């Protein structure tokens, strides 16, 4: 069962909303599908993202995956710890492995996203 305080995309990103800001990362399922994460490419602070736009790339030994913004907003910060320790994405996908922090442009967009139960159902099929 994935954390219930988060919402999810069908591309396996999670988002934790607090006020008009939010934190984004990828789920444990995504991380385990990719394998050992070796590199995460993240945008610069200040970049504006549209909903579903690509905001970066996550790379494992044998695979690569684009990262898609769950909602539109401006990038406030990125997780510098991932530069030296990309394995945080595998070990603490919902905590220390967070990727970007954004200011929400349109808070209503989170309604389009999956809740924990819906996401669990999605990965159960997959």
């Amino acid at each position, binding site marked *: 069962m994935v954390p219930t305080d988060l919402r999810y995309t069908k591309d396996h990103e999670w988002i934790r909303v607090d006020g008009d800001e939010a934190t984004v990362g990828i789920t444990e399922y995504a991380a385990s599908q990719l394998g050992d994460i*070796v*590199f995460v*490419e993240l945008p610069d602070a200040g970049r504006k993202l549209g909903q579903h736009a690509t905001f970066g790339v996550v*790379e*494992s*030994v*044998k*695979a*690569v995956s684009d990262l898609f913004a769950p909602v539109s907003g401006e990038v406030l910060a990125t997780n510098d710890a991932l530069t030296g320790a990309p394995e945080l994405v595998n070990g603490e996908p919902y905590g220390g492995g967070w990727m970007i922090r954004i200011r929400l442009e349109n808070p209503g967009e989170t309604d389009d996203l999956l809740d924990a139960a819906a996401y669990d159902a999605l990965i159960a099929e997959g």
Partner: protein
Amino acid sequence: MPYGPHAAGDRERMLEALGIPDVEALFDDIPEALRASRLDLPEPQPELELAARLQALAARNRTDLASFLGAGVYRHWTPPAVDQLLLRGEWYTAYTPYQPEISQGTLQSIYEYESLIGELMDLDVVSASHYDGAAATAEAALMTCRATRRERVLVSRAVHPHYRQTVAAYFGGGLEVEEIPLVAEGESAGTTDLAALELLLADSDRPVAGVLAGQPNFFGLLEPMAEIGRLAHAVGALFVAVVEPVSLAVLAPPGSYGADIAAGEGQPLGIAPQYGGPYLGLLASTDALVRQIPGRLVGMTTDVDGRRAFVMTLRAREQDIRRDKAASNICTNQALLALAASIYIATLGPHGLRDVAALGAVRAAELEHALAAVGAPRLHPGPYLNEFAVRVPGAREVHRRLLDRGVLAGLALADIEPDDETLADALLVCATEITTSDEIARFAAALDDILAGRPPVGVEAGAGAERPTAGAVSSR
């Protein structure tokens, strides 16, 4: 079939296991209308006859000329150890090391190659090889665009013409490549015009991603690399140095004058001329650009038991994983030639490599003086290492006549740059450690005779123009 494995009955055994009378059933799925017409090819030749044929073909090439031809491919003495090691089947019949547990030979040798070239270039990251100097240069130019997200690249006109043409072919999908003109006169004639470069860089509406210049340049001249790099960096462009590896034993390496990327041709490192390849595309960069560099990379790691081992790494950049998002489509590279270069460098050592470069410089100075003495002075005044252009009236015709006298007098520049009038009466010549004083004397004497209108020995004076040679002079 020359290498077929089947003894009598073997094919039948397999057919029987499959329950078919012959292989035709296995090709039934090719639609009738699309089945091939007969393969109209010469009949197979048993090895003895084929060997004779190949020998006859090889013998139709002339190998007896005193050669002063460089222009991107240089003859050096390759210690026989190189080729004898290269002929081990474990080296040349091995595949790409995708299964590292049984490819540690190849993998370690590539790591060592990366280290050797990295040391020569004074740069951090070296690709496991690219096709040749031209393709490596084109990929370097593309790297600058990806890294800076800009679309315009400036290439000095004194970079090898083939390399410039290759960059032009690789660009053209919306990316722009422009030439930096050369200084026409004075001390710096034939080198990149810094004032013109500064002007080209100043257009802020069309920011430049990368600036490319050669060291030595195509005319053999030394360029003001540090200044070119400064000008590039001042506007946020990257600097690409196009270099010749043997010269790096004695010339300042790209890393020392601020190059972000270095590209070049590794053929001089013990690889035979072979009429065009296979050669060795050198491509190196600073650490900051490691994720932009195309091609394979080998790194060090450990195995489960703690043994040191080598493995292809940062693979996710490559085409089989990244597919349409890959930086480059390169798959097969020039691995065996990288091995040859490594063995060459290991066998010669730093002092040997230095001696190769320095001896070439000595012979080249001898050549310069010998040619000037018979009326063929240098075209440009600036310093050179072992290659330079000389002024010769009617250079193409003189080149042909020298060929008749057994001298391959470098390259008539008009052949490779037919539209450049300033190069119409010039030959590009070089010398290396294997050029002998005898050959130089022969070249000078023959040139002297030709310029003075004297016929070759054995032909009567006044017999008119020497016989025209078969086959036209070609453009390259």
